[in-house]
């Protein structure tokens, strides 16, 4: 019974971090029609900056604030200096399907090597902002810790802020309109290019939080966020790639499913578990769990 509860709680905590990454990917996908593999790199660089601040001041939250700011700047920069150039050289032919994917993979490698050149490959760690000792229920101690609780709390606060921005503000309306129907948004007087850059900035900031939260319970290296990218992406696909709510639900499902595999099946099968969950969802509901029978967009 304890094991079941523990699995659910840990799954929720891991899943909530995936949720941030998948939201970042969905935001960019909706506005730009690009799956941004560089999101992992952007998050990593932001996290390194957060790590520097957090380890010098010994204040995790200050580090987090810097990571968000760095992530947002980086995200806006990638759209403004990189994506716009890429789309100006609009591609046709065989490469058209791969060009955006390749470009973001290239960017991921670029950021990775820059981080490697500056910080090297050794593992860094950030002092966790809360205890990593498990809670004790009755006489047993479960691995679910105050830090896990804090992670869930932080993620859900961010989700609430995002929900308010997207549902209740003009900026949110502009972001949604530009994503769903760029031409109509333009005709309504929205500066869609600028709005897109803001969307990338939000995605970057959210990715920075994801990086910091993963690292608070783990190590940081130029490769340490790759799995976060993969699982965030799987979560986004489970959610149908278009829906932010869907991606959060997808992330929580994935987090819990993977923790179940970890606790009940075997450690090494966690990775293939992501694939299995994805295939199952895609076979049953090819458009993701939030689809309502509309045709899949390529």
């Amino acid at each position, binding site marked *: 019974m304890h094991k079941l509860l523990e699995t659910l709680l840990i799954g929720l905590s891991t899943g909530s971090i995936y949720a941030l990454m998948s939201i970042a990917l969905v935001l960019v996908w909706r506005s730009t029609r690009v799956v941004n593999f560089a999101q992992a790199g952007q998050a990593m660089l932001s996290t390194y900056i957060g790590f520097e601040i957090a380890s010098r001041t010994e204040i995790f939250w200050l580090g987090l604030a810097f990571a968000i700011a760095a992530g947002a700047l980086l995200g806006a920069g990638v759209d403004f200096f990189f994506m716009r150039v890429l789309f100006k050289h609009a591609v046709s032919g065989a490469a058209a399907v791969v060009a955006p994917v390749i470009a973001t993979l290239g960017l991921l490698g670029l950021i990775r090597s820059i981080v490697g050149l500056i910080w090297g490959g050794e593992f860094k760690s950030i002092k966790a902002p809360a205890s990593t000792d498990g809670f004790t229920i009755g006489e047993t101690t479960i691995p679910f810790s105050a830090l896990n609780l804090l992670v869930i709390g932080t993620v859900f606060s961010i989700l609430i802020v995002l929900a308010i921005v997207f549902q209740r503000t003009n900026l949110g*309306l*502009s972001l*949604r309109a530009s994503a769903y129907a760029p031409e*109509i948004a333009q005709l*309504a*007087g929205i500066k*869609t290019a600028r709005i897109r850059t803001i969307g990338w900035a939000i995605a970057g900031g959210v990715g920075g939080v994801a990086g910091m939260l993963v690292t608070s319970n783990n190590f940081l290296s130029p490769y340490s966020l790759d799995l976060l990218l993969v699982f965030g992406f799987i979560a986004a696909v489970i959610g149908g790639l278009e829906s932010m709510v869907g991606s959060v639900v997808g992330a929580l499902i994935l987090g819990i499913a993977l923790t179940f595999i970890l606790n009940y099946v075997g450690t090494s099968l966690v990775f293939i578990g992501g694939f299995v969950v994805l295939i199952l969802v895609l076979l049953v509901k090819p458009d993701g769990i939030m689809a309502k029978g509309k045709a899949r967009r390529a």
Partner: protein
Amino acid sequence: MSLNVSNLTVHHGAICAVNQVSLAVPTGKLAAVIGANGAGKTTLLRALSGLNQPTHGSIMWKGEKIVGKKPEALVRRGISHVSEGKSVIPELTVRENLELGAIWRRNAKESKESIDQVASIFPRLGERIQQRADTLSGGERQMLAIGRAIMSKPQLLLLDEPSLGLAPLVIEQIFQTIRDLTTSMNLTVLLVEQNAMGALKIADLGIVLNLGKVVAINHAQALIDDPAVRAAYLGY
């Protein structure tokens, strides 16, 4: 003359969609643009609202050259374009679709007033204000699209086939609304239509396009009475 177009030419790649078009519409008048499929009607509107860039020619709006300006800049100069095919965003609610039209004004109070105004013009939209736009009927969507354009307080309204895919009764109602709005708000309107007869009946002047060129431009009634136009576009 508030809208003055001279020698406007627009290309899609190698194809010349609009060829040396010149026309003028006085303030407060409704001009119907009719012609067969592929005559360049939609391209003409898209050039006027800044969605397509012309290769040659000039567009003067209230004494200002507007060629090369982007749609978001032209909205701020009072040009509102309702593009073809019920231009609403299905994922948003009716209220959000309307708010979109006023978003550039950054004024919540004015936006509310405009929503009330639209709701009084189209009571059906007022009743469905919280629903998602994809729950609306075709006619209601067209009302919503026009409503969104009104939200931006336009002086020049560009309408692309508002009758497309609607039932005859609804078409009549939409056309009547367009006529009423033109008069009551002193709008200048360019109405692109396949439904030539319906459009000419409510219009002040008519413009006939064929293969990207203006072949006739006259008072709407004169075009209705013109035997050549009747034979080619009105079908009797």
